[in-house]
């Protein structure tokens, strides 16, 4: 399908202002229409349209055998998706919260991720598992987690985290078209507006953010390509999802000329973009919301150290959530916000 229809030229396409949830809905709608093998399944995704509205209207438009509700069984959802993929479909299962994905781990880790390898390509699992992730919405410990590192650790899985409506649409389309299984984590704190980490200021809608300008129709953003959010000379920030916006705000407030890289895809990682930037700035700050120990930040720090050591002018800084479950009432004490990031930036700039 990729070959038949070239993507619209983004500079010429008409655009609309969309929230991230609307952009995701648009991507699913487009792929259901383009590819008769795409099916969207998950808890409450059918008639109701999903607890976050990501699949609103899709069942009415594409029919009950293309978009439908499933039993509350994440192992079953992923398991039947693997079987559907073996038949030749391109399933897009939704896991209602990333925190609920664990019952489906065996089917992801031992089955979807290994199927191409173990069958030497006889069977593949072109599945895109969508799941809202991350905290900042008072979800407590079971509606706030960021389990991306569990998946980046698995050979055979790709992991994607968008940070804007524009990217969410293009990356989701690319993920669905990809012939390997993709874990697509949607930072739910920024579903309806960018969040800069200053939780005590009024929430902003997407409409005021340039990343909400979403081209109509089909376009794909290739997996494995980072986005330079802001060019700068003083230090490199590696972030993804919600933390891209937090980093932007904190560094702007501090008046630092930072180069901010939105990784977008964690596996495969855009190592060239990372190396190029760190070689230029000589300083590197890694940020993620997930717990610290064995988080994806540890991988990033190791890669930068291995590949850019002689360009580094200061120890790499790593800002993360704490190694606790996500606490309900103390959500903002967990969240790696402006104070934690600010301290790390100060250390880097002093170094």
């Amino acid at each position, binding site marked *: 399908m990729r070959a038949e229809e070239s993507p619209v030229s983004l500079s010429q396409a008409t655009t609309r202002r969309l929230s991230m949830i609307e952009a995701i809905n648009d991507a699913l709608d487009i792929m259901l229409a383009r590819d008769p093998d795409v099916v969207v399944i998950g808890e409450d995704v059918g008639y109701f349209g999903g607890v976050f509205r990501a699949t609103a209207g899709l069942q009415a438009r594409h029919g009950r055998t293309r978009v439908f509700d*499933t039993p509350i069984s994440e*192992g079953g959802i992923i398991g039947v998706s693997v*079987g559907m993929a073996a038949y030749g479909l391109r399933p897009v299962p939704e896991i209602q919260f990333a925190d609920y994905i664990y019952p489906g781990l065996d089917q992801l880790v031992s089955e979807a991720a290994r199927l191409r390898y173990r069958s030497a390509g*006889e069977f593949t699992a072109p599945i895109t598992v969508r799941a809202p992730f991350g905290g900042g919405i008072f979800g407590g410990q079971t509606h706030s987690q960021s389990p991306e590192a569990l998946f980046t650790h698995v050979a055979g899985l790709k992991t994607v985290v968008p940070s804007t409506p524009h990217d969410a649409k293009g990356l989701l389309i690319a993920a669905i078209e990809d012939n390997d299984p993709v874990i697509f984590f949607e930072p739910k704190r920024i579903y309806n507006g960018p969040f800069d980490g200053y939780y005590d200021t009024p929430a902003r809608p997407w409409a005021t953010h340039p990343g909400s300008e979403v081209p109509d129709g089909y376009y794909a953003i290739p997996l*494995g390509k980072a986005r330079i959010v802001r060019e700068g000379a003083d230090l490199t920030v590696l972030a993804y999802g919600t933390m891209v916006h937090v980093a932007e705000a904190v560094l702007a407030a501090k008046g630092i000329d930072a180069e901010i890289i939105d990784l977008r895809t964690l596996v495969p990682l855009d190592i060239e973009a990372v190396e190029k930037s760190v070689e230029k700035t000589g300083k590197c700050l890694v940020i993620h919301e997930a717990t610290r120990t064995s988080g994806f930040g540890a991988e990033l720090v190791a890669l930068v150290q291995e590949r850019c050591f002689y360009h580094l002018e200061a120890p790499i800084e790593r800002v993360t959530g704490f190694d606790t479950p996500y606490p309900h009432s103390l959500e903002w004490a967990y969240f790696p916000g402006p104070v934690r990031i600010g301290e790390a930036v100060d250390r880097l700039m002093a170094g």
Partner: protein
Amino acid sequence: MTRGRSRSGSSPGNLPPLRLHVPEPLYRPGDPVDFSDLVIPPAGAAARPDETCAASETYPLCTALIRVLDEDDRAVGAWNPRLDPETLRRMLRAMALTRAFDDRMHRAQRQGKTSFYMKCTGEEAVSVAAAFALAADDMVFPSYRQQGILIARGFPLVEMANQIYSNRADRLKGRQLPVMYSARDYGFFSLSGNLATQYPQAVGWAMASAIKGDTRIAATWIGEGSSAEGDFHSGLTFGAVYSAPVIFNVVNNQWAISSFSGLAGAERATFAARAIGYGVAGLRVDGNDALAVFAAMRWAADRARANLGPTLIEHFTYRAEGHSTSDDPGAYRSAQEREEWPLGDPVNRLKRHLIALGEWSDERHTEMDLEVVEEVRAASKAAEKNGTLGHGLHHPFKTMFEDVFEDLPWHLEEQAEQAIRERRIKWPDWKE
């Protein structure tokens, strides 16, 4: 506990201490075996409802035992599939070929030609007769002991042996443990090695077939031991909810490595009876009776093709050999069990039936046995020319990094270079 506020519940009083029940099989090594308490209904006794019946009409069959071949080697009763002698002979040959293949590959493992093997001795009917009852293009999601399906479908023995030897002709490129076949062109799904994962996958395939308005159905197999996995429940739940065209087989061969069926719940209910809780059709079958297995599978296949949903079939059988070449059943069960097993041997029973029909003889059987042994020997020799495990004739080294993803990402490219460097350091003259 704080005192003062009243709490709900009665006071414990003088109750006996609670006891944990840990199931224990009837017989351990050295024990004399007596299966006379095992309820074996006579052949022909089970009623056969129409394939279009309500699922509840099958529930008496979840505790019965569908049997066709009687003590006099005749096919009797409503479940008699009335197969023509030529089909019976082909079935018998596929079962004998499976047994001969198992024997040869088991020996090959003992001779150091491969790392591992798993026989299905005593369970040949469960896979071979099932394959005969399905259409050739129905998709099967087997467990590791259904090699009989591949053999019944005509998958070349040399390909099976190539896989077992992990040699340079192995279509799975030496990546999988021996017997973890994959044969898409024969409707045989890639074996995992993780148990029970194939259950929801078969349902997903069947759902996809129904979404697309196809006519092909799916069938899946699991051991009674791994029916305890969560995937059994999710498979049955999804199958029932979407009325998916899928057949769930539970091969109750009494033993999961060293754990007897009681550890999967057999002391409480039959495995077929689980169908009742899901509201799907359920059948309990003499798994050593090829005609009963065929009839039950055909019934379930017809039902699935008529959009009437899944059937759960328990095949009551006995694992006559060890779990695998890494297992010693003498360490945990009585050797007499196999000899005393009241349902006999599936190959022998089908052979005697054909003889009773006047369509076969001991002489022809001996002749066939020699033929299948020769067929297996030739295939095994041909496969050995492509290499055996550990003797160098494996797939090219670089294939190790292929198929992790469709394309090779930078980090795997770097790791492949590292691996090749290591090889050159260890063997300076190495060339791929």
